[in-house]
């Protein structure tokens, strides 16, 4: 599209082109004026030449024409031509009052007694004489008068070749000079405009610096003189700061999400810890009461040990989930055991059936880092549990696939809302209201060069995450 083509040209160039165009129009108008003056000057000169020539001849020829003296008219013309040899008079014909030729400088062209109309009809009067045409000669006619009586007329062809050539030459040099001046002005205009619009160029450069993100303009580059544009650039910097701050806030929010997911488990985990505690305290009472009965004590101690080991596992899993220095620790099957330990009480609380299938072994998992994978799985499980109804069904499947692993989390809930899908599948900014758990999953998967697929089939919603092994990337 034409509009598109024009708008793709940088604004500095566009303004310079517009300026050059204006200069050209100005130059053309100026040239036109000068040429017109020149033309008028030439016409005046030509008219003066023709007037002197014709008037001089008229005085001499008048009485001769009155007497129709062919020889004397010819003799006068012939001598006038001889006197002006190589000058302007090319051809002159003198006719009587009936417009019959009396004599001409070239009698072969205008024989005596022939009709002079062919010569006089397209000749111009002295006052209307102009050299503006490209013809190298003009034809002028004037009446011959004797004692206020018109006795005939004279038609003369005058050589204006030099005037035409001069005007052509002057026009050429004028246009050349104007073109040069216009080019110079357009160039100066371009430099000037480019200087004036430098802040705009600067702004455009920083607007999409290095892959789409606006970058801050260094204070040193902001012009001090131009308050208007300087204000614009500072406003831009402020806006850039706001965008940075927002990105930072989003990042921090995602960090927090780890604690949020644990928080969501805290009540279930509290029950998980509290429930065995009653049994453990009973065992303690039993031991105290039946201290002298070794078989009862033995049984109670075994019960106590099992309970404490479970508590130890749960607290270790919580601590592992919360540890910030897990970077570089490889993923193991036990990580999925920990996740099951953490998540199972939540599912149990909601009487949801959990289908837990980990078919990958250590070799398949070890190339992946433990922390992000645990976070991804936990977030998706929490999301599935929230989506599945009371007494519903939740499935986890971990299987090796194409040099990586595939995590599939399924539930029989209502399915993901469009908003949730946006958070999970795209990098578009997060709409306000709603958590950032799914967005965190998206960012973590992207960070591991993985892919997320969403599937809804037979009342079940699946989120399938493929994570390539680090070696395969």
């Amino acid at each position, binding site marked *: 599209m034409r509009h598109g083509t024009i708008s793709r040209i940088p604004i500095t160039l566009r303004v310079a082109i517009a300026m050059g165009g204006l200069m050209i129009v100005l130059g053309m108008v100026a040239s036109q004026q000068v040429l017109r003056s020149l033309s008028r000057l030439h016409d005046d000169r030509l008219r003066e030449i023709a007037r002197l020539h014709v008037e001089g001849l008229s005085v001499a020829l008048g009485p001769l024409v009155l007497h129709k003296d*062919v*020889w004397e008219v*010819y*003799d006068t013309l012939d001598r006038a031509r001889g006197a002006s040899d190589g000058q302007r008079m090319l051809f002159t014909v003198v006719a009587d009052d009936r417009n019959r030729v009396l*004599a001409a400088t*070239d*009698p072969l062209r205008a024989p*005596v*007694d022939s009709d002079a109309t062919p010569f006089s009809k397209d000749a111009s009067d002295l006052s209307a004489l102009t050299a503006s045409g490209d013809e190298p000669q003009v034809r002028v006619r004037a009446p011959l008068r004797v004692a206020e009586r018109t006795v005939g007329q004279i038609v003369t062809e005058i050589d204006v070749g030099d005037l035409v050539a001069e005007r052509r030459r002057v026009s050429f040099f004028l246009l050349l000079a104007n073109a040069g001046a216009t080019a110079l002005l357009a160039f100066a205009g371009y430099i000037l405009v480019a200087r004036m619009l430098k802040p705009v160029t600067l702004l455009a450069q920083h607007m999409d610096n290095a892959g789409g993100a606006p970058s801050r303009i260094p204070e040193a580059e902001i012009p001090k003189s131009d308050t208007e544009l300087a204000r614009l650039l500072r406003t831009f910097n402020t806006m850039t700061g706001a965008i940075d701050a927002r990105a930072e806030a989003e990042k921090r929010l995602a960090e927090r999400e780890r604690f949020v997911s644990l928080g969501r488990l805290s009540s279930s985990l509290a029950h998980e810890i509290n429930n065995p505690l009653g049994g453990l305290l009973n065992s303690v009472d039993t031991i105290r009461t039946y201290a002298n009965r070794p078989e009862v004590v033995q049984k109670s101690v075994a019960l106590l040990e099992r309970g404490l080991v479970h508590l130890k596992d749960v607290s270790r899993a919580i601590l592992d989930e919360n540890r910030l220095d897990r970077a570089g620790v490889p993923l193991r099957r036990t990580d999925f055991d920990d996740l099951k330990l953490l998540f199972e009480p939540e599912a149990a609380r909601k009487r949801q059936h959990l289908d837990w299938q980990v078919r990958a072994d250590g070799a398949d998992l070890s190339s992946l880092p433990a922390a992000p994978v645990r976070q991804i799985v936990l977030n998706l499980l929490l999301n599935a549990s929230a989506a599945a109804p009371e007494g519903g069904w939740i499935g986890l499947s971990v299987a090796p696939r194409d040099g990586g692993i595939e995590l599939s989390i399924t539930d029989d809930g209502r399915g993901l809302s469009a908003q949730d899908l946006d958070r999970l599948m795209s990098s578009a900014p997060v709409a306000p209201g709603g958590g950032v758990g799914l967005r965190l999953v998206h960012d973590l998967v992207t960070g591991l060069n993985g892919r997320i697929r969403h599937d809804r089939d037979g009342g079940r919603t699946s989120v399938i995450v493929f994570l390539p092994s680090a070696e395969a990337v």
Partner: protein
Amino acid sequence: MNRRELIGGVAATAAVSLPTVLRSQQLFRLALTPVFLDNDAAVIERLRDALSTGMGRDVDLVQRRTYQEITGALLDGSVDAAWLCGYPFLQHRGQLSLLGVPVWRGQPRYQSYLITSAGDQATGLEDLRGGMHAFSDPDSNSGFLVTASDLARMGETPDSFFARTIFTWGHRNVVRAVAGGLVRSGSVDGYVWQALAAVEPGLVARTRIVSQSEWLGFPPFAARSDRMADPAVTTLQRALLEMDRMPAGRKALDLLFLDRIAEPDVRLFDGIAARMAELGQAG
């Protein structure tokens, strides 16, 4: 030496450029018809020098536009003598006497030429019917009488034969009119045409001779018969006849392409008289 003689002597000494003395005498006036290269000031100057030297007195050369004016001036005494055409001499045969006749190319005769432009195909007078024709002067033998009498033999007059005739008042002008294309043909003095061929070859080359007349008496020098005994006239005659033997005269004759001036013989003009008779004019 009285005072008057002293002043005269000083005046004479001051006027060194003039060829001779005797300034107290009346100016001798010689009229010239345009029979020769009348546009050449150098020729006129030389001729005047030659005659002034020959006559031992100042000579004024008088030029007029037409033959008629010259003849009139001679007859009424305004001029002392004239270089005339044979035709006006014969027209006033009773009042005029011959002083001398120029010799051109060995004889005192010349021809009349009928000329056209160089590219014209005409082979004779008959071919020129219906065109424009230029005569020199109605009183010129070669420039009018010859062609007019030829036409009379054919039962025509110039006005009936030609579409239009013009008089150019000079033989050189006839050549110009023909060369420039103003007219188709012209009647011209053969001597002038030949002299022009030498001094203005470019002009003459644009014309061509269609026919030449018989040899006729060369334009003579003449004076009124009643003044033939006048010492001034006899001095002129002697100066004319001796021109070719004087250095100044020789120069003038060379410029005029003439050999000398010969003793007059009126029978030379019988041919012209015969043509006049054919036009119905008495000699």
